[in-house]
């Protein structure tokens, strides 16, 4: 009888106490978010990721997962500050010559690789020579090929000379180029074990890598900015998003990126409010619909503008992103210095769209509901890549909206490399929905310059405007922020008028972190920039590691 009762009690508990999830909620009744304490060493942070890193050498890695983890192991000479200014990392300071052609870096002293050897300027020039070496399969050599001369002045001084002023120069000296010379000299980087078992000088060092499952990183007690509080960082690979979200709820994951719907609808319960902290900030990414400007339909600017009027960006943001994003008006993201808020906008206006199309000669003469001109119906295909639900849904909404003004749209979803090789590179497309990942430096020469339209180059929509060409050149050849700003503001005005792309939206990043982690300070560059300063107050620590 007693046993039966306790079984029943257990059942009641399980069924009716949905809040009873996760690990250490036993600490009083108080929500974890309210409990604070002094910084303490210890505990582990489990970060959930869809993808697995491939190689932990920044200059060789092309994927986000590798960069996430390598970013904890390697530092650069400089880094972006929370306000997107550039500050020293391994460099104590630097001087730039008056003509902007020579940069001299003064390195911090006493920084050690995790194997105990001191970091010096030799490591920087070694990394530099590696990245410009034709044998190194890196995708990032472009910025470094602009360097005319690189030299080591002494153990802690490194100097580079450029042929022409190059505005993105300083920012390029991030963590791509620093490699331990004493471990890698004379070795083939691609063949060495280093990429799976790296030695860095960053806040964490790799302890174990279980392929397909997790990477375990332990804190570097000699880190030059001080020992990180959290002792262990686990990068857990969970290929399925739904599975990962279940793991978050049961304590198997402490931190992950939420999808828009998870952010808005699935993490609002009391359980989540008490046990997790959510963040939201714009990403350096924008999604757009690009037109093939060589296609007869889209040669006419009025047609492009009409389509812009027929698309309701706020609807796309509401439905696809659940409101977690902002409308894009140009190729920069809001709240950054190159962003120009005062450009021509296209509020939703189907009437105006119809009128513009009529001016351009498109009318429904045969009454089939589809506009036509010279006997040709207005029907085109939007291409997008597979596996990206947001883009897919965006295309679906645009299809629906354009049908309402008499344009028939087909959607074709293609696997990425087919898409690029067979359609983008060969210019076999009418319109595409894609996104660009942008760097905080506003130089976008490769995307908009009229000379960059050859096969495999990035101006694949074949945009050509001499004024934009001149402004792009101007913007990358001066260090004066005000002058650059003027150039990029003007470029945005022209693009908004010309509409080679319809700039759709800038999605927000929406990470979630377990509430026992304190010291997180959101900023325009995200939350993980100060990971070594995060901590878990002693009484909230969940994982206790053996020494």
């Amino acid at each position: 009888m007693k046993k039966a009762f306790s079984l029943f009690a257990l059942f009641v508990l399980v069924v009716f106490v949905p809040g009873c999830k996760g690990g250490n909620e036993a600490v009083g009744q108080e929500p974890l978010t309210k409990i604070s304490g002094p910084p303490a060493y210890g505990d582990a942070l489990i970060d959930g990721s869809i993808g697995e890193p491939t190689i932990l050498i920044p200059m060789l890695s092309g994927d986000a997962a590798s960069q996430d983890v390598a970013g904890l192991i390697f530092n650069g000479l400089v880094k972006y500050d929370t306000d997107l200014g550039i500050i020293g990392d391994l460099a104590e300071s630097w001087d730039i010559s008056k003509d902007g052609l020579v940069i001299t870096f003064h390195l911090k002293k006493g920084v050690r690789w995790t194997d105990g050897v001191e970091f010096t300027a030799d490591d920087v020039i070694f990394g530099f020579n590696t990245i410009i070496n034709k044998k190194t399969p890196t995708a990032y050599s472009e910025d470094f090929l602009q360097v005319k001369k690189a030299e080591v002045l002494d153990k802690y001084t490194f100097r580079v000379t450029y042929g022409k002023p190059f505005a993105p120069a300083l920012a390029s000296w991030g963590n791509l180029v620093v490699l331990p010379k004493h471990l890698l000299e004379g070795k083939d980087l691609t063949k060495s074990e280093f990429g799976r078992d790296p030695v860095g000088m960053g806040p964490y060092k790799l302890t174990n890598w279980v392929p397909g499952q997790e990477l375990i990183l332990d804190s570097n007690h000699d880190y030059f900015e001080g020992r990180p509080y959290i002792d262990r960082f686990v990068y857990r690979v969970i290929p399925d998003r739904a599975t990962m979200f279940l793991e978050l709820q049961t304590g198997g994951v402490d931190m992950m990126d939420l999808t828009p719907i998870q952010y808005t609808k699935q993490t609002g319960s009391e359980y989540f409010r008490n046990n997790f902290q959510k963040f939201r900030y714009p990403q350096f990414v924008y999604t757009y619909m690009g037109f093939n400007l060589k296609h007869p339909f889209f040669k006419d600017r009025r047609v492009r503008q009409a389509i812009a009027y027929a698309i309701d960006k706020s609807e796309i943001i509401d439905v696809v992103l659940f409101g977690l994003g902002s409308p894009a008006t140009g190729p920069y993201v809001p709240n950054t210095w190159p962003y120009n808020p005062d450009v021509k906008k296209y509020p939703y206006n189907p009437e105006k769209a119809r009128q513009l199309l009529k001016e351009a000669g498109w009318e429904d003469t045969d009454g089939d509901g589809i506009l036509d001109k010279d006997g040709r119906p207005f029907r085109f295909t939007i291409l997008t890549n597979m596996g990206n639900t947001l883009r897919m849904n965006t295309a679906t909404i645009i299809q629906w909206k354009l049908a309402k003004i008499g344009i028939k749209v087909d959607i074709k979803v293609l696997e990425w490399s087919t898409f690029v090789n067979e359609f983008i590179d060969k210019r076999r497309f009418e319109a595409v929905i894609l996104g660009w990942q942008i760097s905080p430096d506003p130089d976008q020469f490769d995307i908009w310059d009229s000379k960059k339209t050859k096969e495999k180059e990035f101006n694949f929509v074949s945009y050509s405007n001499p004024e934009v060409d001149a402004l792009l050149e101007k913007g990358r050849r001066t260090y004066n922020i005000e002058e650059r700003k003027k150039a990029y503001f003007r470029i945005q005005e022209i693009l908004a008028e010309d509409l080679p792309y319809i700039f759709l939206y800038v999605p927000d990043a929406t990470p979630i972190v377990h509430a026992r982690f304190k010291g997180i300070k959101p900023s325009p560059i995200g939350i993980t920039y100060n990971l070594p300063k995060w901590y878990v107050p002693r009484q909230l620590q969940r994982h206790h590691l053996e020494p």
Partner: protein
Amino acid sequence: MLAYLFKRLLEIIPTLFGITLISFFIIHLAPGKPTDIFTELNPKITPEARERLEKLYHLDKPVIVQYGLWLKKIARFDFGESFSSDHRPVIEKIWDSRKPLIERRLFVTFMINLLSMGVILLVALPLGIFSATHQNSLWDKIATTTVFIGFAMPTFWLALLLMILFGVELHWLPISQLKSMGYASLPFWGKVWDLAKHLLLPIFVSAFTGLAADSRFMRSSMLEVVRQDFVTVARAKGLPERLVIYRHAFRNALLPIITLAGLSVGGLVGGSVIFENIFGIPGMGQLFYMSVMTRDYPTVMGILTIGAFLTLFGNLLADLGYMLADPRIRAK
């Protein structure tokens, strides 16, 4: 008998050759190059950089030359180097001999498939016999419907439902992966227990969805055997029905099942892509999916070849089992 075995082994060689040929050409007919993933959405990559990547990987050579180079290596069990940016030897990705057994992908997939095959046989055989001896009864119908529901259920859906029930709601079982955080510090039996808890759902899902073929086959095989002369003779001799069924009928009905089990290895190995992805299990299927999506040809080829090799091996084992079980062949 040895001669027969030898003949079977010889037959494997052209089969393996055919497998490599087919998959190699299919993969290379496809457009797209592995270097594309590497260059995804990064405006800072110049076309020269791309060409350089292609040269480095011999992608500029004719397909037939690439195949020749590849085959030459394969003879030495060298599947070449992965195209992903880690550039590791493919064989090391599949079977990393420096890691503990449980962290080697081939072993993980092999172990799970072996276990679920064991579970399938343990359940399917009695169920098939029961269905056959109670042909067309209500229980037969229930058994039939149950195994077919298992077959008809989309694997990933079933897996997710079970994860929610046992992981999130009841807290009885872990949700994904093979081991817990503190696995390394557990004593031996603790490790076994931890693994068992993690493996329970994947193996259940894999076994439940794969039950139908074997149990149905057992049923019809049994039905066929039951009406053969020797069973009738056994009955006529007055042996108890139980003995007739299990001693005489069962052993004979088992023969075709052995062959079927051998053939089903391919299906099981293929199915591991799905449950390894949903459960986040670091096995060969997961690696295969990742490699396919990143056009890592050497790894794709390596896994296809090893997968086919495993299947062939399974068939061979089945043949061997058949020989041992069938007195007629054994006598030869």
